């Protein structure tokens, strides 16, 4: 398993991944912001400002390390748990959260402009979209890759196989990024697979990388290598990032029904942010003040986001009718009139 920083924050192997100090700091800033935002969203949901929310706490390194390794021309295909990747990608959090507020469907932000596909709920379906986009990019001669997130549960779906096999056959520029966070709602890893997900790569004929998903530098390095490989025409890579879902599956879930606190404690000791902070402090890339600054900055940003999202009002009912087709057929316009009056 690729690991560059040990859980205790000490270097493990060579932590030189070719990032400048400001970039190394940016990774920490983003992780701190993401954590703060995630907790803020949990609070917003409890306050009734969001319908349901799927927290990613514990997976900050996996999401930010991978998203940070991408270029502007690349395209991300997320699931429903990639808010951290979204902010690393520069997505407006208020727009994004309209999905969880229940005022918009999966793509409230502009997917094309941001290179970030709509939030995708049906497991593994987005992996095929990534292969399709990658084929399109390849046909256009673009030096770009698609990165698709999925979990170990999604890896049980037939679509995950069709996507990987198609990407292999056409040597498509795709990075299949599996966040193996231990659980698929209430089903543990062993209920989904009898072998490490990463081993499947070889069966398709492309490389797989097993990486410590709570080590942001290792995740960055693995993703950067896979993306480079994809862009240079050598085809797909499967990355299995070993991490853990610290919180419930969503705010509707109660993990105490199905898992031990001990397991959670085990992973709490492997917190990705704590680890990276310790590392950066020890190598002197940040100091206590800088970290404190990130915390305050996150506090403010999240306050703004909260203010932004709570002020989002219900959309007009016309929204329902106006986007299903480029030009609503007459039968649909009639339904619109019945529902809203006028035309």
């Amino acid at each position, binding site marked *: 398993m690729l690991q560059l920083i040990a859980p205790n924050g000490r270097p493990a192997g060579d932590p030189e991944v070719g990032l400048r100090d400001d970039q190394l700091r940016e990774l920490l800033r983003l992780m701190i912001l993401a954590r703060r935002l995630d907790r803020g969203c949990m609070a917003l949901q409890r306050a009734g400002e969001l319908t349901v929310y799927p927290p990613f706490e514990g997976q900050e390194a996996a999401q930010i390390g991978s998203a940070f390794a991408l270029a502007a021309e690349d395209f991300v295909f997320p699931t429903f748990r990639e808010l951290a990747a979204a902010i690393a990608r520069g997505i407006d959090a208020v727009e994004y959260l309209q999905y969880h507020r229940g005022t918009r469907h999966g793509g409230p932000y502009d997917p094309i402009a941001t290179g970030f596909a709509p939030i995708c709920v049906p497991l593994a379906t987005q992996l095929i979209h990534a292969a399709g986009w990658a084929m399109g990019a390849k046909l256009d001669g673009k030096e770009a890759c698609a990165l698709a997130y999925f979990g170990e549960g999604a890896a049980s*779906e037939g679509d995950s196989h069709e996507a990987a096999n198609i990407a292999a056959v056409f040597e498509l520029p795709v990075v299949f990024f599996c966040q193996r966070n231990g659980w698929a709602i*209430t089903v543990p890893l062993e209920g989904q697979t009898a072998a490490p997900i990463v081993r499947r790569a070889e069966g398709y004929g492309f490389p797989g990388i097993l990486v410590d998903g709570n080590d942001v530098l290792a995740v960055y390095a693995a993703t950067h290598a896979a993306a480079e490989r994809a862009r240079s025409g050598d085809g797909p890579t499967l990355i299995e990032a070993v991490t853990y879902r610290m919180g419930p599956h969503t705010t509707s879930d109660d993990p105490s029904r199905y898992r031990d606190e001990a397991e959670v404690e085990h992973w709490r000791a492997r917190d990705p942010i704590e680890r990276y902070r310790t590392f950066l402090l020890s190598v002197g890339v940040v100091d206590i003040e800088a970290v404190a600054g990130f915390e305050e900055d996150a506090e403010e940003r999240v306050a703004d986001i909260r203010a932004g999202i709570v002020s989002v009002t219900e*959309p007009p009912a016309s929204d329902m009718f106006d986007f299903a087709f480029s030009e609503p057929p007459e039968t649909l316009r009639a339904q619109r009139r019945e529902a809203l009056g006028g035309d």
Partner: protein
Amino acid sequence: MVTEVSMVAALNQALVHALAEDPRVLVFGEDVGRAGGIFHVTRGLQEEFGVERVFDTPSAEAGIAGMCVGLALAGWRPVAEMQFDGFSYPGLDQVIGHIAKYRNRTRGRTPMPITIRIPSFGGLRGKEHHGESPETYYAHTAGLKVVVPSSPLDAYRLLRLSIADPDPVIFLEPKALYLATEDGEPSVDGPGIGEAQVVRDGDLCTLIAYGAMVSRCVEAAGSLASEGIECRVLDLRSLVPLDVGAIVACVRTTGRAVVVHEAPLTLGFGAEVTARIMEEAFDDLKAAVVRVTGFDVPYPPASLEDAYRPSVERIAGAVRRTLGSTRSLSSSP
């Protein structure tokens, strides 16, 4: 002393009783075992009947549906769950291509006593793919039965009957009614699969619905009654087989009918009901049957759900329309 039972509890009891009475019954799906299901419908089953008879599967709906076929061939009686309406679609190929056709394919030599439970329809302010009405996909597929309960006690009865049925049954559970309660002792006695039920009497117009829309129709009938408009409400309960006889009997008396469902208008089940009425009760119609349904667009986000699902007002309005319009003489030959 009467006991009050929720639909979740009634469904849970139906599964407990089925598992206890028939050792060949198996219950499986995503998250149904260890944790007892997203909606607690399968709660406690694994503890009581063991991990062999009540188990979690990997996230693989084609796998879940396809395993039902193999298990049936091995002489088992699978009761599978698709976690949500919108996630039952990856299983459609196995359902359409095999579950619905297998018995026919072998001229009756391979019965498929399969029940597939699908928490369905809207009303829970759910995310995209969590509020779909999939009944048309299943009801149009020859070889399947499709049932939809509208109350806890009927949910118990229909689920027991579905599990006992020798043919495959798609059991659509109205999520919006999971916490609805009813007084009484769950029992299999009563109307069977294929029998509709009049749940409110009235002679001016028949409201035809199933699942969560039944109570809305009753509500609409109530408010109309205050205007002196007495409506009958028919709960279809079973879409396949369809109780055409009951539909016709009602329309004969009322001469008017309104069909209500959440699914989009085009080829929603209301189309079939309307066509049946046209075919079997045309001469008795005093006005055109009206469909009150979801719209021909993808199910909307939570905040527009109420604007999408048929409201009591829309239903009542439709009834008034049918009463306003009476068959013009011009049309008689």
